[in-house]
């Protein structure tokens, strides 16, 4: 029986090394080394009916080492592949930030900023169809936390551990590891998942016992969610078939958090299938909530307005629901935070707003 880990490693190396091998062939034929990539822009995002997620479209971009800039890009990629090959064969790992610092010693091929090396790693994911975790690269940011009626098994350095996300954890919940591949979802007693943008609202729901009362798994997104957080949401939805909902502030930036959970992000459209939860639904704060509950609010800034207008042209928001909500918000010229519900008392959100809204959404059945 082959070791599945060994199998992944072999496949990763094979796909990774196919890139320099192709360049080698090109160069021996007297051609410039080149790479062909899908264009990574908003214009090249298309909805895939089958998987119900947004992926890169057919637009491709050829990068050939015929200009100084492109030649340098390929040289950097050659260095990164060389580095990853050694890291994988030696069973070592590093963070994206460490990779950036390691490049300091690469003379001409060093990265000017970490964003450049991050983007190049994403390029490699696209070219190989392998996720960066298999390159033994991980982000610095830790995954967010989870609290609720859920039992998981984590493969730790001290062996596998089973953890119940209410009974075996403290008040802040279970912390999601960066590599979700080492996580097994064992069992649950939940009727829904609520992914929450802010730490304040996550703590409020735990303190008010919302998880117990409504059998809800609470996930803290920590702003724009990390890949691991999004993968956990994706797996909860696909493995347990429980409805996933998203609860954020009522402003354009928060709608994008929802979009990255439900539709995928432009940057990571190449791995949408495992990152995105197409069934995820938006709870609020909705512009209609701001109006109906007369929530404390701020005026929109110029940047807010521009972001809302950009969303009106974003293919991911091109449906009736979002058009209505965004246009209403532009009319109201107002935005509200999740915590604005506290103006009506600390229990209002758990006793009134969420039960009403979840019933509306047909997730909570009376």
């Amino acid at each position, binding site marked *: 029986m082959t070791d599945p880990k060994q199998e992944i490693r072999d496949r990763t190396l094979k796909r990774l*090394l196919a890139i320099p091998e192709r360049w080698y062939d090109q160069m021996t034929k*007297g051609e410039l080394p080149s790479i062909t990539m899908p264009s990574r822009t908003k214009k090249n995002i298309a909805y895939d009916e089958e998987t119900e997620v947004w992926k890169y479209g057919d637009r491709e971009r050829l990068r050939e*080492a*015929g200009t100084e800039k492109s*030649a340098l890009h*390929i040289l950097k990629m*050659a260095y990164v*592949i*060389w580095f990853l090959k050694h890291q994988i064969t030696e069973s070592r790992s590093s963070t994206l930030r460490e990779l950036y610092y390691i490049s300091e010693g690469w003379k*001409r091929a060093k990265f000017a900023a970490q964003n450049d090396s991050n983007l190049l790693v994403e390029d490699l994911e696209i070219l190989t169809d392998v996720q960066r975790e298999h390159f033994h690269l991980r982000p610095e940011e830790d995954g967010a936390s989870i609290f609720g009626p859920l039992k998981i098994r984590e493969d730790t350095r001290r062996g596998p551990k089973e953890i119940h996300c209410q009974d075996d954890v403290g008040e802040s919940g279970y912390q999601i590891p960066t590599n979700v591949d080492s996580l097994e979802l064992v069992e649950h007693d939940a009727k829904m998942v609520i992914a929450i943008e802010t730490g304040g609202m996550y703590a409020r729901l735990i303190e008010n016992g919302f998880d117990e009362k409504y059998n809800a798994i609470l996930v803290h997104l920590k702003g724009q969610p990390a890949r691991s957080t999004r993968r956990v949401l994706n797996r909860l939805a696909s493995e347990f078939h429980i409805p996933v909902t998203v609860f954020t502030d009522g402003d354009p930036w928060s709608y994008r958090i929802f979009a990255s959970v439900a539709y995928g992000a432009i940057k990571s459209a190449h791995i949408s299938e495992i990152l995105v939860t197409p069934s995820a639904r938006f709870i609020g704060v909705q512009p209609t909530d701001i109006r109906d509950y007369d929530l404390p609010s701020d005026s929109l800034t110029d940047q807010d307005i521009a972001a809302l207008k950009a969303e009106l042209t974003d293919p991911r928001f091109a449906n009736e629901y979002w058009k209505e909500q965004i246009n209403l918000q532009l009319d109201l010229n107002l935005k509200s935070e999740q915590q604005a519900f506290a103006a009506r008392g600390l229990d209002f959100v758990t006793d009134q707003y969420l039960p009403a809204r979840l019933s509306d959404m047909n997730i909570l059945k009376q």
Partner: protein
Amino acid sequence: MAPPVKPASADELAKQQRSISVAEFFEKNKHLLGFDSPTRGIVTTVKEAIDNALDACEEAGVLPDIYLGIFRMEGDIFKVVVEDNGPGIVPDNIPYVFGKLLYGSRFHQIRQSRGQQGIGISAAVLYAQLTSGRPTLVISRCGSDRPAYRFRIQIKTETNEPEILEKEETTWDRIHGTRIEIEFKSSLTARKRLVEYLRYTSVVNPHARIRVELDGEAILFDRASDEPIIPPQAILPHPHGVELGELKRIAAGSTEPLELFLVNSFSRVGQKTATEILGLAGLKPNKKASTLSPDDLAKLQVAMQQAKVPPPLGGQCLSPIGEVLIRQGLEKEYEFDFCSARTRPASVYHGHPFIVEAAIGYGGKLESEGTARIMRFANRVPLMYQQGACAITGCISSVNWKTYSISQSGLPTGPVLLLIHVASTNVPFTSESKDAIASIPDIEREVTLALQELGRDLKTFLSRRDKSRQTEERARAICAIIPEIAEKISETIEKPVPDISPIEGQIMKRLVAKKKTENGTVTISLQNYTAHALDLTLYIITSDDLKKAEPEAVFIEEMDPDHSGVWQIRLAAGENWRVTYQGTGNGMIDIRGVDEKKKVVVDLDRS
């Protein structure tokens, strides 16, 4: 108490009144002719002698071969020797040409010439006898069948007449030509300016060879063209340029009735124009020109100015240098990166035809900083003094050079040279020393137009050069980065490093020269990716030792602290070649013999 001064009576004053000779006048006013100081005296003398030599050769249609010698005699006495291969001067005229001020062949002719009034060289003779007391030696011969004559001449200042101290038949190795030896008090502090004058002269007289022996230093200004100049033809005066005195003189010598007189004595006047002039003047066409009263002459002169007359034809009486020869003359001396020249169409001011020529040079041997070098010429004679007072300088400053990508502070700055030549039958100088051109709007307009055209040419060159720099950037990327890619990927996939020269070749289709230094060994490799064989010369200028280079240089020149090595290489299409030597790889390499667009030099040590 002193006795009162007795007032002079008219009779007594009359005793003191007498005519002043021209020679006496200039003895007292040397500065008017450019002899205001001993330093300047030598420049002016050389200038006058060489102008005469060039004019003489031009008239005879021979290629000038001029010798100039300057020798330090005892004390501050210098001897200037100028010898030419012109037609020579007949013996009877020699004393007058050199020993009488205002004697000349060209004053009464309307055509472009260097000298005009017949003052210059005799003024030098006068200056010599005033400062050193020595007479001037002249040798001249007019052809193989005629003997040479040798004269010693002075000027009698009181009468402005030549004084012949010695005249004898002699033998001379030249078949035709003239040699003059003048000794006068001077100094060589203006040596640099003298050399500059000679270089400028050589630039606008590319058909001349000037051999110089300057106080022990030998300099040769060789010719860049073997075409003798077609001497300009004299033309009749143009009605618009005629002044009353001149009109009176011409009329007095005529036997014709007025109408014929006008048609035959002036240029561009036909029957119709003559009738118009006479109508305006209110004079009868059949009246004899020689019988006109001073009043009638004045009326006629005014009418000639008013009448519509076509401008004089510049073509025959003017002799512009021409765009090609200006460029050849300049490039021979400065080896520019870029050079462009313009000869404007002939134009007219106050009835005098003139042509403006101009050239612009960029880079090469020019200094990269400071104000532009300005070369002014009038009738092929360099103007060496009073740059600031010259109309040409004013025109240069008033052009907005920034439009043409050249920096400017008054005058343009940077590695720029501007040459302006004004050729005319009558160049309007600000003074008799002929240093600066007067502000004449018609001339200034032509100069400005020429400069603007040249500015546009230079701008085109500069933007093309910038574009070709981009091409070099691309070449750099290919020649510098691709080998690194090749090296890294072969290491990663564990295969031998691929040969990337086919990639270079396909993209460049040029001659690629690369310099790379590794572990103290400098390698310069050439690869001919063009479709043709190339004959080229490689220059390496470095402080590294080139004597042990492999292969050996055909020639190594020491240029302390650097050496300059030269290799001559023939490369068939697709062929490559390399030279190696020990060192740090400092300095530069240059490839000659290959079109600029067909070569790429990549210094891999520079990153």
